[in-house]
């Protein structure tokens, strides 16, 4: 029993490490882009610090989102929860609100087209691009 718990914990830990590595890599790429843009170099420690920070903040976000969803007596996390999460930073909130509106609009259009197309029977033919957007949203 203890061994199982340990192995499970080890698995979780290794999984976590892999996630952290992925985050670290992504942060490194982004920092390289910014370095090229601003003509300023990033030290390795900086990238490591940013990646650690990002990881921990993601954990916090996840907990907050779950709390918000439960507060609204829901079991699924909604865009409303995300907007609530981003309310602190005005620019971020604005960006997210715009994006969410865009997505909502796309959804509406899709539904309208689905209704139209129900007679034709071909749903995916017209908007492959939007499908990509839908996938990214999901």
């Amino acid at each position: 029993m203890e061994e199982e718990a340990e192995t499970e914990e080890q698995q979780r830990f290794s999984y976590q490490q892999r996630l952290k590595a992925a985050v670290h890599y992504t942060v490194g790429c982004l920092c390289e882009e910014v370095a090229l843009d601003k003509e300023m170099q990033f030290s390795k420690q900086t990238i490591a610090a940013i990646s650690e920070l990002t990881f921990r903040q993601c954990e916090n976000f996840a907990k907050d989102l779950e709390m918000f969803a439960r507060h609204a007596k829901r079991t699924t996390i909604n865009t409303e929860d995300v907007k609530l999460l981003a309310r602190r930073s005005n620019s971020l909130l604005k960006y997210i609100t715009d994006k969410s509106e865009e997505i909502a609009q796309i959804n509406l259009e899709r539904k309208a087209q689905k209704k139209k197309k129900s007679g034709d029977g071909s749903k995916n033919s017209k908007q492959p691009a939007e499908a990509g957007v839908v996938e990214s949203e999901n």
Partner: protein
Amino acid sequence: MADDNPDSDSTPRTLLRRVLDTADPRTPRRPRSARAGARRALLETASSRRLSGQTRTIARGRSHGARSIGRSAHIQASGHLEEQTPRTLLKNILLTAPESSILMPESVVKPVPARQVVQPSRQESSCGSLELQLPELEPPTTLAPGLLAPGRRKQRLRLSMFQQGVDQGLSLSQEPQGNADASSLTRSLNLTFATPLQPQSVQRPGLARRPPARRAVDVGAFLRDLRDTSLAPPNIVLEDTQPFSQPMVGSPHVYHSLPCTPHTGAEDAEQAAGRKTQSSGPGLQKNSPGKPAQFLAGEAEEGDAFALGFLSTSSGVSGEDEVEPLHGGVEEAEKKMEEEASPESASSTPESLQARRHHQFIEPAPAPGAAVLSSEPAEPLLVRHPPRPRTTGPRPRQDPHKAGLSHYVKLFSFYAKMPMERKALEMVEKCLDKYFQHLCDDLEVFAAHAGRKTVKPEDLELLMRRQGLVTDQVSLHVLVERHLPLEYRQLLIPCAYSGNSVFPAQ
């Protein structure tokens, strides 16, 4: 005669002495009621200018009345302990009465002339303000001799005998003397017992923060208040039995007898009037059962009252302060609190007492506690107590905000344990302001997120969870139990009351 003795020189003692020395020794049999009434009058009239006149007129009146009433009253009084002359009475008073007069009712003049006119009627003629006391005094005195231990009687007998020997003018039997002594002593004892320095029971603390009243300290007024409070038992006796007495503001009760408190209360009410829900808490709190301690506690909440000293329980926010041992102490602390000269020194003294009380503010976010209190208890408080009439109209929004934060700034400066610059304190106040604004915005958003228009404790819990105070291991109830006093806890955690009711509901 009233002009004979200036107020400063004449004390009851000296006046009685004068009367004893000058008055003719009389030993007619007198009705006990007259004697009791005279004694009462003498005891009650403290350092009033008319005392000499009163005693003289009383002596004269008694002599007149005694002759006419003596026969009829004699039969009535035969059952009581007899053989007491005014002289012995006065002597006993001098012997037994405490140096400082316990009672100094203002309406002393009333009973005396009334008594002169109506001799046989005891209680009715007695002063109206002391109605409550007189009946109390009457039965004990009659019962006193029976109740007293024989040892005490003997002691008093010895004293009285000595006194008699000294005076050499009285031929009184020992027993009546002892009884007189005993009764007078018990009367004085009763008087002391009747003094209303009763510990103020648990008061309902002001839930919300109120800005501390800013008033210059008036030492003379303070001392006067101290004296007045100790000298006004009847009102206290009356007030205590009423669970929900009228709010102190505007009420001329001596009981709350801190005259400063009504004023400060009014000020606080004004300041609180324009504030958010937080103000409703304390304002309503003021209507809580009329107990000065409570009121003071409420004020303390706002203005660093040392209510903690009175608070029995540890819980902080709630007036938390239980019994107030002494009025004087309260007043003192309040005065200290109100001193503007040195906010730090003022805060240090009362806040040292509040340390336990207010740590809850420091550790967890004070605002959540306040917000919880403001949201939930505001309504129950409204239900429980009639809203206090606001003396002034609503103030501009900014002032109450900043005024209310000074309380927390004082707390901050106390916990800093070192002197702080005024600018630093101002910055702290700004930060607190921003913090509370942010907090309340969050609460509003949380409530809207749940599709509600009212902020409920669930929103507070969510906020505290985000702050890390409420975790999976530590729930909100646990924090409430840990940090809040009983009064607040009752409002938050369902508690069963009499009549098969649970409050708050569910």
